[in-house]
């Protein structure tokens, strides 16, 4: 999957990789982040 030009939903987790981190990485690859969230899976 090439992220360049793709729209991404960044679904992060508190105890894993948070949403803002995923979003920053996705943007660095040329993706457009349309939704960014950080959940807590319990």
């Amino acid at each position, binding site marked *: 999957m090439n992220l360049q030009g793709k729209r991404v939903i960044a*679904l992060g987790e508190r105890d894993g990789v948070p949403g803002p981190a995923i979003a920053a990485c996705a943007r660095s690859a040329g993706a457009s982040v349309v939704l960014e969230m950080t959940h807590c899976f319990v």
Partner: protein
Amino acid sequence: MLLGTPTPDSGKLYAQTVTEGDPTWAGPLAGLALRLPVYHVLEAEIREQFASEIAEEQLAMPEMVLDARELGEAVKSVRETGT
């Protein structure tokens, strides 16, 4: 969709929810197959696309404590076989 789940089980649950529908039948996506392409942010084929400075800054700590290979395999399994 890029996931940042910390365990293979939670990764599978999230991946199944956005592909085949909520497997627990408890939420609004029960029975609704969105069939979204889903990856874990630490999967190699995704991770290698990130700018190195950004990836180092954002992912260095999670990569030290999480098993990227197991996480990637769990999400990939759902993506390719649905289970």
